[in-house]
C-alpha cells in the first residue's frame, strides 16, 4: 500500500471505531441519570473524564449507594491503564508540547491507542493519523451521544423497570470480556468478583469494589512463569 492509502485506511478505521464507541455513550448517559446525576453533570463526566470504564465506574459506585469519594477513587484506578497508553504512544506522537500535548492526553483512551498501534510500525504518519482521528472522532461522538442518553434517561420513570440496572451490569461485563483472554486474568476476575460480593454486607458501598484492587496487587506482585500470560 502507498503511504497515502495507508493513512486513508487509518482514517476509515478511526471513523468506524468512533461511531461504534460513540453509540454506547447512549447507555452511559441513561445510566448516569438513573444513578441520580443530572444532565449537566452527566455531560461534564463525558467531557472531563472521557474514558468509558471510569465513567461507568463513577456512576456505578454512586448508583450502588457509594460515596462520592469512592466513586472518584474507583474511576481513577480504572483510568490508570490510560497512563500506560501514553507511554506507548509518546514515541509515535513525539515531538509534542503545550496545548497539543494536553489535548493528546485527553484523547488517550483504549480506542485511540488501539487504532494507532494497529497501523504498520514503520509508518509513523499512519499511526499518528489513527491516533488523532480516533481520539477526536470518539471524543465528538461520545459527548454528543451522551447528551442523547442523558435526555432519554431523564424522560423515563423507574430505571429498574427499563432494565437499566441490568444494562449497567452488562456494560461492565462487555468492558471486561476482551481482557479475559488469559487464565491468570480469568482467575483475577473471579477472585475480585467473589471478594467484592463477600465484602458487600460488611463494608460501606463502594469499598468492596476498591478492595478487589488488592487482588490485582497480589496477582501482579510475582513474575509469571510465562511472560505472555500478563494481560494488556
Amino acid at each position: 500500500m502507498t503511504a497515502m492509502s495507508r493513512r486513508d485506511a487509518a482514517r476509515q478505521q478511526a471513523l468506524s471505531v468512533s461511531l461504534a464507541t460513540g453509540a454506547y455513550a447512549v447507555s452511559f448517559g441513561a445510566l448516569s441519570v438513573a444513578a441520580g446525576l443530572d444532565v449537566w453533570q452527566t455531560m461534564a463526566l463525558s467531557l472531563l473524564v472521557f474514558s468509558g470504564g471510569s465513567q461507568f465506574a463513577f456512576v456505578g459506585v454512586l448508583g450502588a449507594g457509594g460515596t462520592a469519594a469512592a466513586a472518584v477513587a474507583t474511576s481513577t484506578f480504572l483510568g490508570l491503564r490510560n497512563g500506560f497508553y501514553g507511554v506507548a504512544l509518546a514515541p509515535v506522537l513525539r515531538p509534542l508540547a503545550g496545548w497539543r500535548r494536553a489535548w493528546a492526553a485527553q484523547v488517550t483512551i483504549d480506542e485511540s491507542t488501539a487504532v494507532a498501534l494497529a497501523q504498520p510500525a514503520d509508518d509513523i504518519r499512519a499511526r499518528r493519523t489513527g491516533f488523532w482521528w480516533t481520539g477526536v472522532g470518539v471524543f465528538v461522538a461520545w459527548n454528543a451521544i451522551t447528551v442523547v442518553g442523558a435526555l432519554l434517561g431523564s424522560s423515563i420513570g423507574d430505571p429498574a423497570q427499563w432494565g437499566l440496572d441490568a444494562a449497567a451490569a452488562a456494560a461492565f461485563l462487555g468492558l471486561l470480556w476482551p481482557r479475559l483472554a488469559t487464565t491468570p486474568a480469568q482467575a483475577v476476575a473471579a477472585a475480585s468478583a467473589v471478594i467484592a460480593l463477600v465484602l458487600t454486607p460488611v463494608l460501606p458501598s463502594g469499598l468492596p469494589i476498591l478492595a478487589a484492587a488488592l487482588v490485582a496487587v497480589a496477582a501482579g506482585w510475582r513474575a509469571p512463569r510465562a511472560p505472555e500470560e500478563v494481560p494488556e
Partner: protein
Amino acid sequence: MSDYILMWIAIVAAGALAWATKYAGHVVPESWLENPRVHRIAAYVTVALLAALFAVQAVTSGTDVVLDARVAAVGVAAVLLWRRAPFIVVVFAAAAVAAGLRALGWG
C-alpha cells in the same frame, strides 16, 4: 456543603485525575514505568475493578446479595459477548431481558 455541590466537586476531581493520569504517561521518562511489576499490577487492576463492578452491579442491592431478573439478563449478555455481538447490542439486550421479566412480574 450541599450534596449537589459535593457531586460537582467529585466530577471535576475525577476529570482532573483522569487527565493527569493520561498526561503523566506522555511526559514521564519511559524508564519509570518499565518496571514489570508495575506493568503487571496495572493490567490486573483493570480486570479486578471491572469484575468487581460487574458482580456488585449484577447481584447486589444495597448491602445484600440479591438474585433477580439481572441474573438472566447478564446470562444473555454473556452469551452475546461469546457470540461476538457488538457492545451496544449486548447492553440493550440485557436491559430488554430484565425489563421483560419484570413486566411479567419476575424479579
